[in-house]
């Protein structure tokens, strides 16, 4: 096989499958009339062509052959990308032809999203013949672009990508950005077309140019001698000291703080509500991250802590249960102030963590997952049951939960106020997680996750640390539940089904097990995005599935993995080492037995 084709087929195949998948599940049709920019570029079209761009990018990766790193020169990169895009485009074309031959509406009886209309959309609103020609041509062009961008130097790549990424982000966050512009007292018409809700060409290009210039400017400033070594020093990741911040870091910190504090006033009330929910899931994610990410205990019943936090808060602060004829006092309730109740809820949740943890201590991996899944279900069933009606309202749930207000605040009705309350909780949980991560305890968890038996041999009491993980994880998760109770003012058991466990786990895994930043990004993507981009909402479960499968296959460490500062050489160099050893006739067993998974 000629070299470009040999590299092309795999990424092209995956890209083709992704295109067919997003079309077949209805994502494309949903986004057909959501415009990114002008009326030519809909998000659907971006979504259709992006996989081919990425395929071209992947196909152009540097490879190690016979101990030498092969960096592709620009023309070869373009060629390899183009071939990949072409193959991908051809694959899509074949599927289009097949669907057309069988009749889309017949297929639609099985895959409801498939229809003549969808076929038209995927053919770029042209006849099938023209559509196929377009797929081949655009595929090759887009793939070649992917290849070329990959072959650029990192600096040049940043500059080239800055504009398109800006347009992409502005298009996806249209609701957020246009609300923000309105909140600031301007009209968003210069940026967004009020009819299509997409970017205007003038506005989009202007924004792209400005950002590109900013990137260029920054790179020029940085390219002074002392900054040359900058890539090695990861920004702020490792600095733990209190003093010793550079001016730059101080400025960045100040900007970040102001941005976080001003956010609800910029994005408007409705979106502040969404962000509030995102923060509840950040709490769940942070808690679960301790159990799964730090300690390596796969817990599928995490919703139990969420439910416990919510109901315990309701009961301790004196809410009402819903009954068939109005509301009534629950079998047990205290009229505590919310801020008195919270520490009690957290402590009790930690206790529940110990309780849940002790019976499953001896279980590993899959068994642990199944048993915790069962325990989670037990909790959901309990709060829904008739039996619990007197205490937590059973299927009817609870209401009249305190707003936890201090002075003039109105957490229940004003999402902006709620944002600040949630922020405090999130910061607390973040700080706790961060401290734990780099402490003795964190190191013990790490060791336990990697090799329980050897951890034992280091004198680490794995039983104690497992319990500790369940307790801290549970405590943080209960904070999320408490916030939910405050936010809604009422509870129904439907909010506590197994989906919460799965979504929380997805948040943790998507962001990268063990990574705190990852939890925030994961929450924003899985919980925030559907709020910002309404069309996405009904596809969340599908997207979840696809994203998780893709991540597990392509990037098992998550989007933002928990970066540990190590000085080992890049994988490519290691491949080269392996090759050199093999060439020298040494057994490969020496390292293969210990290669990290």
């Amino acid at each position: 096989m000629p070299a470009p084709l040999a590299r092309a087929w795999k990424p092209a195949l995956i890209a083709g499958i992704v295109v067919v998948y997003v079309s077949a599940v209805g994502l494309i049709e949903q986004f057909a009339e959501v415009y990114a920019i002008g009326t030519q570029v809909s998000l659907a079209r971006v979504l259709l062509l992006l996989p081919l761009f990425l395929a071209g990018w992947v196909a152009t990766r540097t490879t190690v052959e016979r101990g030498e790193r092969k960096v592709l020169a620009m023309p070869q990169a373009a060629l390899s990308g183009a071939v990949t895009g072409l193959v991908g485009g051809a694959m899509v074309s074949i599927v289009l032809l097949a669907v057309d031959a069988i009749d889309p509406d017949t297929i639609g009886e099985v895959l409801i999203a498939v229809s003549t209309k969808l076929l038209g959309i995927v053919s770029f609103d042209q006849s099938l013949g023209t559509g196929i020609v377009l797929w081949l041509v655009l595929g090759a062009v887009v793939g070649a672009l992917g290849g070329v961008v990959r072959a650029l130097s990192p600096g040049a790549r940043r500059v080239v990508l800055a504009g398109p990424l800006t347009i992409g982000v502005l298009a996806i966050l249209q609701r957020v950005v246009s609300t923000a512009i309105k909140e600031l007292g301007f009209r968003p018409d210069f940026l967004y077309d009020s009819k299509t809700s997409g970017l205007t060409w003038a506005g989009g290009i202007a924004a792209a140019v400005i950002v590109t210039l900013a990137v260029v400017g920054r790179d020029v400033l940085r390219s002074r001698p002392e900054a040359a070594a900058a890539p090695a020093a990861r920004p702020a990741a490792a600095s733990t000291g209190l003093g010793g911040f550079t001016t730059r870091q101080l400025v960045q910190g100040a900007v970040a703080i102001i941005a976080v504090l001003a956010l609800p006033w910029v994005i408007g009330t409705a979106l502040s509500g969404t962000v509030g929910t995102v923060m509840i899931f950040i709490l769940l994610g942070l808690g679960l991250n301790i159990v799964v990410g730090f300690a390596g205990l796969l817990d599928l019943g995490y919703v139990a802590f969420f439910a416990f936090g919510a109901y315990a808060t309701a009961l301790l602060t004196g809410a009402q249960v819903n009954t068939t004829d109005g509301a009534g006092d629950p079998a047990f309730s205290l009229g505590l102030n919310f801020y008195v109740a919270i520490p009690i809820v957290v402590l009790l949740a930690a206790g529940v963590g110990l309780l849940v943890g002790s019976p499953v201590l001896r279980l590993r991996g899959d068994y642990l997952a199944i048993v915790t899944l069962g325990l989670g279900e037990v909790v959901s069933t309990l709060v829904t049951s008739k039996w619990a009606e007197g205490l937590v309202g059973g299927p009817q749930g609870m209401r009249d939960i305190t707003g936890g207000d201090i002075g003039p605040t109105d957490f229940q009705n004003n999402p902006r106020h709620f944002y600040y309350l949630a922020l405090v909780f999130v910061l607390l949980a973040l700080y706790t997680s961060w401290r734990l991560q780099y402490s003795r305890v964190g190191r013990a968890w790490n060791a336990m996750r990697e090799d329980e038996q050897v951890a034992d041999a280091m004198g680490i009491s794995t039983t104690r640390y497992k319990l500790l993980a369940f307790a801290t994880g549970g405590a943080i998760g209960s904070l999320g539940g408490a916030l939910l109770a405050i936010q809604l003012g009422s509870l129904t058991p439907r909010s506590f089904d197994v989906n919460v466990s799965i979504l929380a786990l997805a948040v943790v895994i998507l962001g990268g097990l063990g990574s705190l930043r990852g939890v925030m990004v994961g929450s924003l993507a899985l919980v925030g995005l559907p709020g910002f981009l309404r069309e996405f909402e009904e596809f969340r479960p599908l997207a979840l599935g696809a994203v998780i499968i893709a991540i597990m296959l392509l990037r098992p460490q998550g989007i933002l993995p928990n970066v540990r500062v190590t000085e080992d050489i890049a994988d490519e160099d290691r491949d080269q080492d392996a090759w050199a050893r093999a060439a020298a006739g040494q057994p490969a067993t020496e390292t293969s037995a210990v290669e990290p998974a």
Partner: protein
Amino acid sequence: MMAGKGADAEERKPVLELRQVNTHYGLVAVLRDVDMAIYPGEMVCLLGGNASGKSTTLKTILGYVTPSSGEVVFDGEVISGKSTTEIVRRGVSMVPENRRLFGDMTVEENLLLGAYTRTDKAAVEQDRQMVLDTFPVVGERLKQKAGTLSGGQQQMVAMGRALMANPKVLLMDEPSMGLAPILVDQVFEIIKTIRSLGRTVFVVEQNANMALSIADRGYVIQTGRVVLADTAANLLANPMMREAYLGEL
């Protein structure tokens, strides 16, 4: 602790002793009436064929498995039945079979984990320095992920990690396993170095020749029973040994 070996050592009390130990995995007896004694400052090796129960002996000492009868005595106290954590805390540490470093952690973190049970910061720092002096290669790679080290380097880190516990007895399970011949020599050099630091070492080996050349005494175990126990020199000269384990006819 150097010359004189056996005779000298026997007058003292053993630091580690197995008394009539039987260990079962389920219904299967793996160790049968095992008696062993290791004296302070000694280097003792445990030889035997595959599946003869060598690793099980170490696991029994470290409390991974509890003997079904008999007892393990460490420092004058019975430790069989206690948790691994507790046994490690009292001063037993192990270089596990296949090294088993924490591959995703740095070399430095691996070393620190070795000293996990210790609270005496200054002494730990001293031992760290000692480990780095003994294995200069380890010092050069403190920030590297342990999983990316070569097999020989990993073995040094594994030994360093075990030494960081400042153990009274150091157990090693087949330290030469899976290493190229040159590295095997290197590993035995390292064990000699550790020995010259005055450590008590109990090492399981398949490489009987090498092990006996550096040990004071040795036990030979067959299907869970101790069949020979003698000084290293005598074992090396023993005709039965020569036939069965030393690869001669």
